[in-house]
């Protein structure tokens, strides 16, 4: 960071004994090797796969016939272009909807006196935690053109309209609704930090509230809107579960579902999958880069220097209108899908002769739950998921701590490279990580492929940027002086870390590890390519049930997964609330 921290670091002082002098380069080297192993090697293999036409399973490891012609042929392929086009339309449309919803929500929560604002703000974050496949499953139960519950309801009401969520518009709607919180997070904080007199000046000048919104408010938070929409676009682009559930029945492939389709063919087209994965990664990288540019740019909204009271518009009776808008949103993204899953999971058959049949208790039973737990794979998958989650949390947490400490607290040569390597995965969608790990290990006999370690390491690589970032924030809160005081007391570096840093940063470490655990449990994209029947995980098994076509079992297992995630999230929030308190005490 600064020159003083370099001078203060025992490992880099001239007077240090030889062993100490070698410690820093060895440490940096070790970290670089680990990161190269986790990130660079799989990516290289992915690139080789994309530009060769040898099959790693048949031809063995290390046989390449590198040539760009294959890659170019793939990019020219009509199906690839169609999937690319579909992905842009679905994610673009979804982003536009997400911006509309996210902006409306942030305005309601930050700028109005809508009742129960706090509750609305909290509850509107729920969609972020819903696994995409569960959302997709729920909406296919609700909105499938023939048997969808919504359509059944419309029929009873004698309304001639039918929903069809197995369509591009269905995909856009579900994307937009579930990823609006990403836009909301950015715009809400921008609005909150905006000097309210900027808007008041416009009103006093004679502009209407509407004009003010479009000539002052929105232009001022434009960077936040842009950053939020770029992020939600990138996230949608990498999602597999929703297009798999809603697009597949209508034969709409996006990049992610197309890549998986390629590896599921027999024989699997691993090379083509790698080439398309690189295309997906390139698009993602461009958008991530653009988003970082926007975020690092100057923000208009913080020009004013004075602290201010946030402005709250008195909407009068209209505040119940904005309240009902918010409730309608929560109903659509949380309540309705939950009802759908519960009905589908507990009903023997998802057929309703009339409206009263909904309340016919004889039609409900535990049969689907019994049948999923009769399947030995169910318990295996739950057990595997927990194991993978635990390994990911521990390995990822320790690695992220080492990286975060080295980047933020030392001035050793090579820490910039560590920073760079550990940031690369932000631009790699989960599914691409999966394909890259597949290429890295499938041809190696006796390697990781087929073990749960490959899943865990892929997850560690995928989530390392987020983990390092969240840990770095907790490092920032610990004063450098606390550490220096320990050195002055004659403690060595390692002992200082063990006695000062770890205890002080412990709440942050625990929070990061539990978050890592939750992320690993809900990850589907990268697992798709890496599981075997022994190492299947919950998310993958859910996809199996869905593709097997049994709605009852799918819904039942969705509920099981949701409950497990809910419990884990509850524990996480509980742990990190404790951490917030003790950080406040320590800081």
């Amino acid at each position, binding site marked *: 960071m600064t020159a003083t921290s370099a001078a203060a670091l025992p490992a880099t002082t001239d007077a240090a004994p030889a062993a100490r002098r070698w410690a820093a380069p060895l440490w940096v080297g070790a970290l670089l090797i680990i990161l190269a192993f986790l990130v660079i090697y799989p990516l290289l293999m992915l690139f080789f796969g994309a530009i060769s036409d040898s099959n790693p399973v048949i031809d063995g490891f290390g046989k390449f016939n590198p040539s760009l012609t294959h890659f170019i042929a793939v990019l020219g392929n009509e199906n690839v272009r169609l999937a690319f086009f579909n992905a842009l339309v679905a994610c673009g449309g979804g982003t536009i909807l997400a911006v509309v919803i996210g902006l409306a929500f942030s305005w309601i929560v930050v700028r109005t006196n809508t009742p129960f604002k706090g509750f609305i703000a909290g509850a509107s974050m729920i969609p972020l935690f819903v696994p995409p496949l569960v959302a997709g499953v729920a909406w296919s139960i609700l909105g499938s053109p023939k048997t969808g519950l919504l359509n059944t309801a419309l029929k009873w009401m004698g309304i001639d309209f039918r929903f069809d969520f197995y369509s591009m518009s269905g995909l856009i709607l579900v994307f937009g609704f579930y990823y609006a919180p990403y836009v909301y997070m950015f715009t809400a904080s921008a609005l909150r930090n905006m*000097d309210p*007199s*900027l808007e*008041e*000046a*416009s*009103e*006093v*000048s*004679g*502009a*209407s509230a509407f*004009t003010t919104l479009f*000539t*002052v408010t929105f*232009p*001022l938070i*434009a960077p936040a809107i842009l950053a939020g929409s770029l992020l939600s676009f990138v996230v949608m682009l990498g999602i597999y579960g929703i297009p798999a559930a809603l697009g597949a029945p209508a034969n709409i492939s996006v990049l992610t579902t197309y890549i998986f389709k390629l590896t599921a063919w027999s024989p699997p087209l691993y090379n083509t999958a790698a080439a398309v994965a690189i295309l997906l990664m390139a698009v993602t990288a461009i958008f991530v880069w653009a988003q970082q540019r926007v975020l690092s740019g100057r923000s*208009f909204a913080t*020009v*004013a*220097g*004075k602290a*201010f009271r946030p402005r709250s518009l*008195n909407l009068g009776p209209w505040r119940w209108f904005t309240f009902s808008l918010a409730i309608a949103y929560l109903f659509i993204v949380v309540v309705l899908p939950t009802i759908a899953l519960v009905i589908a999971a507990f009903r023997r058959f998802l057929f309703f002769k009339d409206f009263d049949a909904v309340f016919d208790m004889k039609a409900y039973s535990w049969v689907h739950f019994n049948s999923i737990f009769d399947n030995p794979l169910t318990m295996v998958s739950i057990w595997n998921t927990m194991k993978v989650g635990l390994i990911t949390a521990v390995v990822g947490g320790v690695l992220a701590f080492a990286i975060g400490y080295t980047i933020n607290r030392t001035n050793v040569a090579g820490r910039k490279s560590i920073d760079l390597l550990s940031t690369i995965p932000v631009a790699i969608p989960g599914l691409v990580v999966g394909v890259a790990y597949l290429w890295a290990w499938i041809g190696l006999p006796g390697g990781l492929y087929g073990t749960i370690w490959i899943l865990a390491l892929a997850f560690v690589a995928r989530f390392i940027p987020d983990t390092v970032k969240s840990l770095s924030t907790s490092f920032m809160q610990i004063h450098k002086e606390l550490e220096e005081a320990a050195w002055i007391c004659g403690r060595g570096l390692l002992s200082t870390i063990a006695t000062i840093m770890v205890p002080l940063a412990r709440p942050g470490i625990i929070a990061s590890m539990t978050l890592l655990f939750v992320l690993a449990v809900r990850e589907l994209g990268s697992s798709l390519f890496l599981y075997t029947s022994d190492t299947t995980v919950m998310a993958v098994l859910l996809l199996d049930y869905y593709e097997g076509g049994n709605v009852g079992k799918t819904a039942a297992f969705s509920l099981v997964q949701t409950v497990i995630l809910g419990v884990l999230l509850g524990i996480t929030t509980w742990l990190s609330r404790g951490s917030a308190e003790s950080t406040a005490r320590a800081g």
Partner: protein
Amino acid sequence: MSAALLIEDLVKKFGTGKAAVDGVSFDVPAGEIVVLLGPSGCGKTTTLRCVAGLEHPTGGRISIGGRVVSEPERGVLVSPRERDIGMVFQSYAVWPHMTVHQNVAYPLKYRRKNTSGSGDIESKVRETLELVGLGEYAQRPVTSLSGGQMQRVALARSLVYRPQLLLLDEPLSNLDSKLRIRLRDELRRILKMTGMTGLYVTHDQSEAVVLGDRIGVMKDGKLLQMAPPGEIYNRPADSFVANFTGASNVLKGKVLERKGEQAIIDLGAAGRIEAWTPQPLVAGDKARVALRAENIRLGERGPANSFTGRVTERRYQGMQTIYDVEFGDQKVEVLELGTAARHNDGEIALTLPPDTCWAYRDDGQATVD
């Protein structure tokens, strides 16, 4: 013509707790500038925002140009954009995503009663920018301007459409002190040139004196006195007003007798003192006499209120000298202008002209600052 602004018994309460503005009444005749002066948190900004319509009053009535714009009892609440007012904010509130020209042209573009053509807009903007001395900056992005220049843009923006009433909330307090003094004088010149009616809020008394045709002193949501600056400074209605405007010496004593506005106060060992009082004091009341350090005359024996005291300390400040003087068991600070310190430590004559000694009932309150 009726008053440009009339405020009657304005009350504003936020949630629970005591009123931020508590029964304030005053008027601003057309063409006059009224300054609200008071310590932090006394309700100046709240009053101003009620006038602007940015805050909804709890009670009372506000009329602008003879039209009632706020009267909660009758459910009247005209929105800010229909009040025909201009407002300059403490934080400038110039829009950073626009150029100087766009900022100033904005009100002309978006006002409802927009009758001017685009050529008209152009000339009005240019004229107003010339007025505030920013003629050459029209095409600059506002973010490239200095704080003082931004505040001029904000002023131009609120003047460009010639509103009936201009509201200014501590427009100079974000500027450094030199610039503040320059812009203060310029502001008065511009406002007088345009003949604007203004309500100006500040906690800086020098600003209030220079800018205000009348000054209203506020405390805890109440308007204590509303008068021309000379009267505020020479006939403060209340010990808070006296103290807030700089009468830092307080002598405690008992009222001996009162004749009209004349009171005799017994200061104990120091003797008795003649003072002016605006309050109906009666003999036996506890009283405090306020007087300004610059109004005491050292080394002079006047016809009344002259005492013999002792200089205990002398603080030379270059342009002025401050003396700590004791007489009887009373202590005062005396300020003399001039680069020479004329008096030495030791015994000295002093005169406290009765006109500049103001007696108030001693209600046991602490003084500000």
